[in-house]
């Protein structure tokens, strides 16, 4: 089985070239894989054999940036580092993985990547206003637009966000950006158990201090609660004081208040769950990252069962749970490949009983089948298939990475 990335790369410099290259590829019956910097290329199931890569590398031009409107229209091939630098020059930011800054904007959107401050500012889908996309037969089309409120026509941009490049290629997007908050602080609290840390997170959630992140960290060290606050000096000082007080009442074992610099360091660590839970500085040990999503009230049950399973198997584990979002990430590492794989499967099975559990990172042996990575096709699978059939009937972009083998 040859699943190497092919040498043939289609690299358009604008929409017209994209259309022409895609028409050429279609007439030759080529199967394509959309790619930016390749940062997230190991996500999803192993792609089937593809004939060529459709690269967004030359599609990174800034079309319009209107700081006064808080909107930006830019090519999807732009690197996140360049994008964040551009916005910072005008005192603005795009809160999506603003600390980690790896890969392209297109890759972040196509994988609907999680970021540390999603609770405060929204997920990728919430910040996308419009898009220009290229379909497999060379049709290039815009949908929605670059104004912050718009209901003209179908919401194709959001449909493409998180589609892993399987419906078409995102060429350009319009985004809602935000003024950079004056202060960005954080607090870290220690707890004797994960249950206590989760309870403290719940106390914070019951308050009305609008934290931008509430993360329960476990595994590598004693369980911790990480809280983030953005806004004016008065806002962050007052809200942090109250939220910390509420969290401390749940038998906290230690407290650290982080200023903006230390907070930035913490945010950088939490921004990308894969990088956080499989730290590169600990060597290239084989690892697995599982992402659980579902009702917030079910998160604790999965998390404690998953941590216990890892402990039983003697597999190193660390976790980052975001109770307010109903999200949990679990990283497993170990040199015993069989134990690692068995534990990963157990954690996935536990997660899929009441919620969704997917693999964000895993050795190839675990990524062979879409169902291993994504779980069984969801209830609305037939509608997804119908949608793929409408936009990509020849399945040019359906390389098998996504749900149900799309």
């Amino acid at each position, binding site marked *: 089985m040859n699943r190497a990335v092919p040498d043939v790369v289609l690299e358009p410099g604008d929409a017209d070239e994209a259309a022409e290259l895609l028409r050429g590829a279609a007439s030759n019956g080529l199967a394509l894989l959309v790619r930016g910097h390749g940062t997230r290329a190991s996500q999803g199931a192993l792609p089937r054999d593809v004939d060529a890569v459709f690269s967004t590398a030359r599609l990174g031009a800034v079309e319009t940036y209107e700081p*006064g*409107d*808080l*909107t930006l229209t830019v090519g999807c091939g732009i690197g996140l580092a360049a994008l964040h630098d551009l916005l910072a020059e005008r005192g603005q930011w795009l809160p999506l993985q603003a600390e980690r800054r790896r890969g392209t904007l297109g890759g972040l959107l196509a994988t609907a990547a999680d970021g540390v401050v999603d609770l405060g500012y929204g997920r990728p*889908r*919430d910040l996308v206003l419009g898009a220009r996309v290229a*379909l497999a037969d060379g*049709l*290039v*089309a*815009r*949908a*929605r637009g*670059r*104004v*912050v*409120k*718009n*209901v*003209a*026509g*179908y*919401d*194709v941009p*959001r*449909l493409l*966000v*998180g*589609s892993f490049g399987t*419906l078409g290629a995102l060429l350009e997007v319009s985004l809602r950006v*935000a003024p950079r*908050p*004056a202060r960005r602080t954080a607090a870290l609290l220690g707890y004797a158990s994960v249950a206590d840390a989760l309870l403290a997170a719940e106390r914070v959630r019951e308050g*009305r*201090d*609008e934290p931008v992140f509430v993360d329960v960290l476990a595994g590598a060290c004693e369980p911790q609660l990480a809280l983030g606050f953005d*806004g*004016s*000096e008065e*806002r962050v*000082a*007052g*809200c942090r004081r*109250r939220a910390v007080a509420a969290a401390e009442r749940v038998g906290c074992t230690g407290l650290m208040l982080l200023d903006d610099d230390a907070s930035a360091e913490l945010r950088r660590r939490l921004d990308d769950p894969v990088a956080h839970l499989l730290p590169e500085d600990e060597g290239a040990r084989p690892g697995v990252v599982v992402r659980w*999503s579902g009702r917030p*009230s079910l998160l604790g049950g999965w998390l404690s069962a998953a941590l216990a399973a890892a402990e039983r198997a003697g597999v190193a584990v660390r976790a980052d749970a975001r109770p307010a979002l*109903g*999200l949990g990430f679990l990283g497993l590492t170990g040199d015993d490949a069989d134990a690692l794989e068995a534990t990963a499967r157990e954690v996935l099975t536990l997660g899929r009983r009441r919620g969704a559990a997917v693999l964000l990172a895993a050795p190839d042996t675990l990524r062979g089948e879409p169902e291993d990575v*994504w779980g069984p*096709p969801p*209830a*609305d699978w*037939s*509608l*997804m298939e*119908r*949608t793929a059939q*409408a*936009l990509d009937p020849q399945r040019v972009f359906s390389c098998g990475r996504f*749900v149900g083998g799309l």
Partner: protein
Amino acid sequence: MTATPDALLASLARRLGQDRVLTDPSELVVYEADGSTMHDVTPRAVVFPRGTEEVAAVVQACLANGVAFVARGAGTGLSGGAMALDGGIVVALNRMDRILGIDVEDRRATVEPGVRNLAVSEAAARHGLFYAPDPSSQAVCTLGGNVAHNSGGPHTLKHGVTVNHVLGVQLVTPWGEVVRVGGPDRPGYDLLALLTGAEGTLGIVTEVEVALRRIPEGVRTLLASFPDVDRASAAVSAIIGAGIVPAALEMMDDVVVGALEAAFGFAFPSDAGALLLVESDGPEPGLDREAADVAEVCRAHGALDVRSADTAAERAEVWTARKKAFGALGRVARHYYTQDGVIPRTRLPDMLRHVREVAARHGLRVANVFHAGDGNLHPCILFDEDDAATRAKVLEAGAEILRHCVELGGSLTGEHGVGVEKREAMALLFSESDLELMRRLSDAWDPAGLCNPGKVLPMGAGCVELSPRARQAAL
């Protein structure tokens, strides 16, 4: 072999009960139009299903007979989206109005599509929660209609529109199947985003799960009056430029000020040419400072007066002024026609000048009440004589305003939808390729072409006959 339409009505009466199938022309009149369209068309019949299974049965019967069907909530839509074209059946969902559950721990509510928007927040209030999108019609409009139109409202500037709050729906597909469409966090395509705002052309939603939020701890409401809309617009840009994201930023022009004074006896400074309503909400820490900063920016941009609504009663009065502004216009004109265009916020002064020029050229008056923070305009064209010549002028003026919105990089509709009203105007905003992509989706999801046909996408020549009419102003 398809049965005759009469056979369809008979089968629907058997399935739902005779009292749930309206066919009497005198009763159908109510369902000819929605909230404010300039057009109407009589449906073949109106049916009132009691649940998902009955909706699916109606859809299947319509498919078997080749008859179009369209879902309808409270009928408050403003673009003709719930009109039954092609001799279709109206599937009225306003009697499916049960709140099925409020999950306090997970902060979500599950409701039938006929539940009123405000009823969700009322039911959630005792748990300290609310449903954020708040269209001006929220006391009447339904969640099903909100999903169809991706409804917004004054507070969407900070809290987002319907699509940001829908967690899942039960859908009767255009081919009559019942499917639960999961939230944005289940693996797979974001079909909820596709369905929200699709104006009922991709199926009928029979159950909605929405996110509830914690009621903000504090609220500060300011009402600033300015000599003219240009200075008020400059203040809006300066507030946003200062890094402040208010919960709401609403503007009303001099015509509305006059109407509010006449209707409700509000007293504003005599030379007020524009009102700006700015509301901040969130945690108490820092909230007074934010309100003070907003007031300062307003004064620096020539505000004549900045009032703070400090009590719940005062806030209610300020919001009454905003939410009843359309009603108050009944004091100054017999009829009105509301537009819904969007522009990049920094182009507000340019756009408002254009609106005034267009109105003057056609000899019409226009009032502006709009969501200034997100550049969503609602120019309201006022007229007294309900005759064909005036109606033609009003429609032309509305079209010119929309064209300018598109020229400035904006959109045809921010929250009212395309419906019938703007479907031909879609060609102003979108190229043939853009429309082709949308058609591919529509064709795949509605292969029979019977699910609310004639909406959203342009038909070109030879479309359905509509009889224009003007809407009698309220009051």
